């Protein structure tokens, strides 16, 4: 197993290298000079620009800068932001918990809603319940999350005052506080996923429920819930798992919107602001960290497969194809 993990991790390196190089090129080709933004309109002059560029190291040629950055990045040092003068690593580490928690809570929420919905609408496929679920999920798919987020704020915090409208309570403020502040944004973030996961699970579940082993389980006289959740769910959850892993990438983009509306100090907003202020090193650092997380998450998904499906574990699936 350790060897498998090692091998897999090795293949990730080129992917990460490519991502970082791509970001570097892309950002450096962007029009605009960070020096100008650092200085602000009042103080720009040829000399001051040159001074700032020298201070930021922007006067070195691109490949040199990239390699220097890469070398530092390997030691965990992602440089210092041009604009906010923060250590990029520190800035990201400050924000990462927020975004991670947001994504985890939103995935958990989405799964917690989608699994029972998907399972029961598959079990009662064609019923009124199923139709209602179908309608709702498509509705969620079509609802832009910024509108959904505002509706949530309007109803759940302004009208009924159940959750704070904006802001983040770190875990240090207590778990309850933390979770209440994370709930609305996570919910807003999970709309699409609730729908996608439910649809996906429903389809796979219908297929699984047609399989003989389910009939066999029934013919053993097991209760329905047991058949659904202990027998049918696991073999039906592979595409769900894959998509959940891939959604991590999509979620990151969605966090930009959610973090803006709910005023959360997350990585999405950091990235967005950094792009908008041409904070190249910050963007570069964030992209790298995001890529690493994405790759890691999908790596974990791969491992989960082997957990969920013993056939993959032994590699025996291929011999008796």
């Amino acid at each position, binding site marked *: 197993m350790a060897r498998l993990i090692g091998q897999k991790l090795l293949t990730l390196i080129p992917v990460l290298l490519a991502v970082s190089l791509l970001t570097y090129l892309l950002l450096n080709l962007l029009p605009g000079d960070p020096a100008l933004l650092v200085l602000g309109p009042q103080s720009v002059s040829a000399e001051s620009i040159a001074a700032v560029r020298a201070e930021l190291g922007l006067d070195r040629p691109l490949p040199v800068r990239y390699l220097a950055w890469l070398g530092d990045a390997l030691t965990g040092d992602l440089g210092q932001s041009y604009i906010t003068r923060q250590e990029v690593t520190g800035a990201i580490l400050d924000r990462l918990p927020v975004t991670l928690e947001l994504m985890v809570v939103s995935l958990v929420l989405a799964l917690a809603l989608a699994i029972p919905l998907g399972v029961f609408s598959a079990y009662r496929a*064609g019923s009124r319940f199923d139709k209602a679920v179908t309608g709702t999920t498509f509705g969620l798919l079509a609802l832009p999350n910024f509108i959904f987020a505002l509706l949530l704020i309007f109803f759940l915090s302004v009208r009924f005052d159940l959750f704070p409208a904006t802001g983040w309570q770190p875990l240090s403020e207590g778990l309850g506080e933390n979770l209440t502040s994370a709930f609305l944004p996570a919910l807003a973030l999970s709309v699409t996923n609730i729908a996608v996961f439910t649809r996906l699970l429903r389809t796979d579940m219908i297929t699984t429920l047609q*399989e*003989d*082993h389910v*009939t*066999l*389980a*029934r*013919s*053993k*006289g*097991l*209760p*329905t819930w*047991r058949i659904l959740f*202990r*027998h049918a769910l*696991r*073999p039906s959850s592979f595409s769900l798992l894959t998509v959940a892993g891939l959604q991590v990438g999509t979620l990151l983009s969605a966090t930009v919107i959610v973090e803006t509306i709910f005023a959360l100090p997350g990585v999405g907003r950091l990235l967005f602001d950094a792009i908008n202020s041409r904070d190249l090193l910050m963007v570069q650092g964030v992209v790298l960290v995001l890529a690493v997380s994405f790759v890691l998450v999908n790596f974990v998904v791969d491992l989960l497969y082997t957990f*969920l*499906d*013993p*056939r993959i574990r*032994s590699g*025996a*699936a291929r011999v*008796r194809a």
Partner: protein
Amino acid sequence: MSTTAELPVPPATPDPVAPLLEVRDLHTWFDTPRGMVRAVDGVSFTLRRGASIGIVGESGSGKTVLSRSIMNLLPRKAAVPASGEVLFEGRDLRPLSSKQMRSYWGPQMAMVFQDPMTSLNGVVKIGRQITESLRQHLDLSRQDADAEAVRLLTSVGIPAPERRLREYPHQLSGGMRQRVTIAIALACGPKLLMADEPTTALDVTVQAQILDLLARQQAERSMGMVLVTHDLGVVANRTDDIAVMYAGQIVEKASTKALFRTMRHPYTEALMRCIPRVENPSHTRLDAIPGRPPDLAALPSGCRFAPRCRYAQPECLTENPPLFSDEPGHEYRCFFPVGTAAGAEALERNERAGSTAAGTTMDLLTKASA
């Protein structure tokens, strides 16, 4: 969890005089966009305690639907609420909800499926698949259930059963998997075992092993067994009775010996003749049955086999033959049974005409298709 709470209707006390299983005029139809598919269309038979019956028929003749109807395992939504009764120890199972059926499934009746790979759950360990019904129905502790599972695996001839309990289905060979499904079916000591083509997915040598195992277990535990297959050869010496199905109906039913001795229905005869035999020399021309079974959604009036039958007479086309019987226990649906004067006469008439009443040329029927 306590299982008793989930058994709202304990099985009625068995009626000692009633046969183990009595199927009376069972119909299972499916309402599909294509039309009403009459998958099982008036099937009746009786199975005594400890006896076995083989149900034989081509693909699509309704064998699986019949066996699942008996088990009450068909999805309720698909099947049209159909007429007929399935009396298990005198009690009709058909009206029971699946909640009520749960007390039958396992301890009273159990099932073995065609493909052991798909009928075992690939992600659940063998042990749990066996013990869960034990724990559900017999309220055994985990240890007791495990011990019982080991005993069961031993009885179906699996070496090193303790180790196997901790393995997954894919780690077993096909034959072993099928033995496991048999062990699962036998777990709660059912009175009735339904085996739906239990060997079709297996190798010839393993097939023989499994069939022997089934026959042995059935005899040892004196269970009733319904053995479904498409191969007459498979059931030839393993069941007491045989019922031949064609297009949703039983066209001939007799004790195994009687059936092979004096087959009455032309379909049974044709089926028998199209099987290649090892005894015959190479390149023996086979008597194939031309044509195909009718569409169950658009059945012809009259005898369902008539278009492919050598004996077909005009009345075969208009009237579906009822069950005839010329010796006790031997029933068939044919106006012109094989081996009778009527049959011989019909055959001769058709041969003279060169074609049957259904319009099929005799040439084709006797010489088999090309």
